[in-house]
């Protein structure tokens, strides 16, 4: 993109405007500031009040977690330097690092941990992710730096959860009404300066920060003075802003990635181990998808390989499994045996068995959530399905709405309208997600059977890796054979970053946690 170096704008107003913007740039360079532009804003600064990736990525900067994922996605000690698990597997005793302080200067200790967990289980306003914490019965402050968590049953996914942003530790000084909307006190690498809703979150360096287990080189406070996380919804706008230097890091438009790489100015960073998985999921409580053949017809009738190729141009991969690559239990070869290779004729056959044909297409609706070009992907699937005789209307909605709508669809047993299906997405660090999704009553009140419940319970209570793998794979096989949870591709959202050349040290950790601890902006 050319920037105006000629005499330029015709209007005085424009000239002033330009001066203003260049002026801004000059100051930003001096203050070691980095601007990260994202397609949307976070929902809340309170980790218990939102579930979006956009929110989590901000929490990561403000708060810290007891454990941290290493580059391979394995949970490692972080603020908790060690832990003990009782014989029966029901009690976790965690020892905390000494000398950590919250942003307001108060010491970070066991009380903060208890405050956070109690808050998550608050009767009136429980955390949106309460169940992911596991069957916690009580939290006990043993001493300042020791905390004991008791479970009512064994929960294999507890430690990985403590490395996830949903378990961000909220300091116990967050008692103001404004917490979540204009104040947030954590122990993370950056402090909150200001959140202008819809526009930007401004953070500044936490000079007291200490890193124990995060997979970055810098063990002290971040090099950046300021981190500004801006909302810029339009991909083209983000790209333009990247090119002019108004923004340093952003997700580029997918269609331009090839060109960006060719131009070579901006660096393209593709995150691995995102834990993200995109899959088909059906309202199985009523026709047409109460019949497995209808579900299989959708699976046979769509070609994810071709679709992601067109839309993401090789930046995404075909995913056969219901859980993402890098997550315990993912095995492409294993999953592919039970998968559904693109086979339109087979789909037509199955539909014919059900009484559908060219004159009597199967009518249904496909839910898709906004962003990441998923609506375009959906449009391709829609066209493919039309060829086998499935008329799928597309409804695009935000992820929160989609969660609600999917659940509602499953619960509408007697509704005369045809059941829907959806391109659901989940990002999780452990196969325990399958328990959340499919163990009765199920996150979406969807497909459940007693035998699946039993299989899922086994994945929770089996801690020994070999045995757990077998248990997980049994579940995978069951889900795929029943065409309940049909994997499509991975990763699925916000995993590509374009980074300006003057920026170094930008990393995206496992499960899509961008980390700015090592980042430096050259003059």
């Amino acid at each position, binding site marked *: 993109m050319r920037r105006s170096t000629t005499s330029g704008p015709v209007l005085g107003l424009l000239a002033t405007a330009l001066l203003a913007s260049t002026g801004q740039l000059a100051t930003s360079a001096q203050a070691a500031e980095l601007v990260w532009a994202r397609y949307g804003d976070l929902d809340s600064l309170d980790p218990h009040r939102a579930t979006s990736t956009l929110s989590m990525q901000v929490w990561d900067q403000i708060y810290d977690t007891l454990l941290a994922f290493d580059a391979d996605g394995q949970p490692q000690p972080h603020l908790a330097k060690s832990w003990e698990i009782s014989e029966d597997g029901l009690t976790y005793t965690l020892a905390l690092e000494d000398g950590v302080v919250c942003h307001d200067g108060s010491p970070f200790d066991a009380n903060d941990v208890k405050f956070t967990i109690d808050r998550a289980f608050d009767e009136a306003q429980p955390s949106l992710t309460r169940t992911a914490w596991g069957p916690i019965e009580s939290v006990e402050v043993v001493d300042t730096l020791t905390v004991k968590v008791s479970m009512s049953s064994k929960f294999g996914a507890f430690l990985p959860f403590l490395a996830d942003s949903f378990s961000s530790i909220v300091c116990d000084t967050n008692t103001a009404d404004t917490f979540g909307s204009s104040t947030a006190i954590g122990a993370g690498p950056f402090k909150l300066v200001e959140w202008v809703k819809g526009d930007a979150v401004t953070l500044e360096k936490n000079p007291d920060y200490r890193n124990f287990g995060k997979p970055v080189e810098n063990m002290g406070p971040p090099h950046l003075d300021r981190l500004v996380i801006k909302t810029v919804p339009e991909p*083209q706008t983000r790209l333009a802003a990247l090119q002019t230097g108004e923004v340093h890091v952003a997700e580029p438009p*997918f269609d*331009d990635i090839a*060109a960006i790489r060719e131009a070579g100015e901006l660096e393209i960073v593709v995150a691995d181990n995102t834990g993200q998985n995109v899959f088909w999921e059906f309202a199985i409580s009523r026709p047409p998808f109460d019949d497995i053949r209808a579900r299989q017809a959708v699976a046979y009738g769509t070609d994810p390989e071709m679709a992601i190729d067109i839309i993401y141009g090789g930046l995404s991969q075909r995913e056969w499994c219901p859980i993402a690559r890098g997550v315990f239990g993912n095995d492409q070869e294993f999953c592919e045996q039970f998968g559904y290779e693109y086979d339109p004729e087979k789909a037509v056959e199955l539909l014919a068995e059900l009484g559908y044909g060219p004159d009597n297409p199967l009518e249904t609706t496909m839910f898709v959530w906004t962003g990441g070009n998923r609506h375009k992907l959906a449009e391709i699937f*829609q066209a493919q399905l039309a060829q086998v005789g499935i008329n799928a*209307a*597309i409804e*695009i909605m935000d992820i929160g709405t989609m969660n609600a709508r999917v659940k509602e669809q499953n619960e509408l047993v007697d509704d005369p309208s045809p059941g829907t299906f959806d391109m659901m997405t989940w990002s999780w660090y452990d196969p325990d997600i399958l328990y959340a999704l499919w163990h009765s009553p199920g996150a979406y009140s969807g497909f459940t059977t007693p035998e699946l419940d039993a299989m899922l319970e086994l994945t929770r209570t089996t801690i020994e890796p070999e045995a757990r793998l077998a248990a997980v794979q049994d579940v995978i096989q069951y889900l795929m054979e029943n065409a309940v949870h049909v994997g499509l591709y991975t990763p699925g959202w916000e995993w590509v970053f374009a980074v300006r050349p003057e920026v170094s040290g930008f990393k995206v950790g496992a499960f899509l946690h961008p980390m700015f601890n090592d980042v430096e902006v050259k003059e």
Partner: protein
Amino acid sequence: MASAAEPVHAAAGTPASRSFLGALLRTPSGAVGLVVVAVLVLAAVLAGVIAPYDPLRMAAGPRLAPPSWAHWFGTDDFGRDVFSRIVYGARLTLQIGVIAVGISLTSGLLLGLVAGYASGWTERVLMRLVDVLFSFTEIVIALACLAILGIGLTNAMIAIGIASIPFYARITHSVVLVERNKPYFEAAVAGGAGHLRLIFRHLLPNVVPTLIVVGTLGVSTAVLAAAGLSFLGLGAQPPQPEWGFMLSSSRDLISRAPWMMIFPGVAIAITVLGFNLLGDGVREVLDPRQRQR
């Protein structure tokens, strides 16, 4: 002097007649508007014949191909033919116009007629309500309707229709007020005419010409509004070849495939312009006071 009023009545009195089309074609705006609208209708009716490709067919050509002989308006990111999509889009556009204006016109007409005819408290309450809704502005009412009805093109049409009811009610009401204070109305009352006769035989025919003008102009507003909602993602859903929706999908590709942005925009602008001109033309024919302007 009464004679000054004569030409208005003279032309206003012309019954919907043979000469109307002729008169319309003699006004420059009416002629251009009529041609544009005729082209739109033809495109909608004959879309199957005119469009070289199936508007939904992906990979009808290479992806993001610039305009060429094979693809006059280029192709989109799925390799669909933009020209064919625009031609088929005319159908949706006409539907939007007819349905949205149909809803708002009939409801607004009824409301305005009743309010204007009833007078007294009925009128005050109804028109007060209409004023209130009016100050909500159309887009907000449309958004509220969509929040209730849910997203989709049909719902968008309904929402736009509902949102413009206050506008049509106001216009109808103001015309009814003028008409019911004219002596001919009083003459009909004096003749012993009842409610229905007064409303339908005397008021309605005198309100209709104004509403024809407003309705024609209203089609352009409705098309714009629907395109706007579709652009925001609240209206048409894939794969509908709705022009506003096509524009919104061109946003990410504006630098790589500007033709995806240019042609649907031109189609909307020309259609809206056509209905605006047609409305101006009809007004010129029906209200000659405007003609001197």
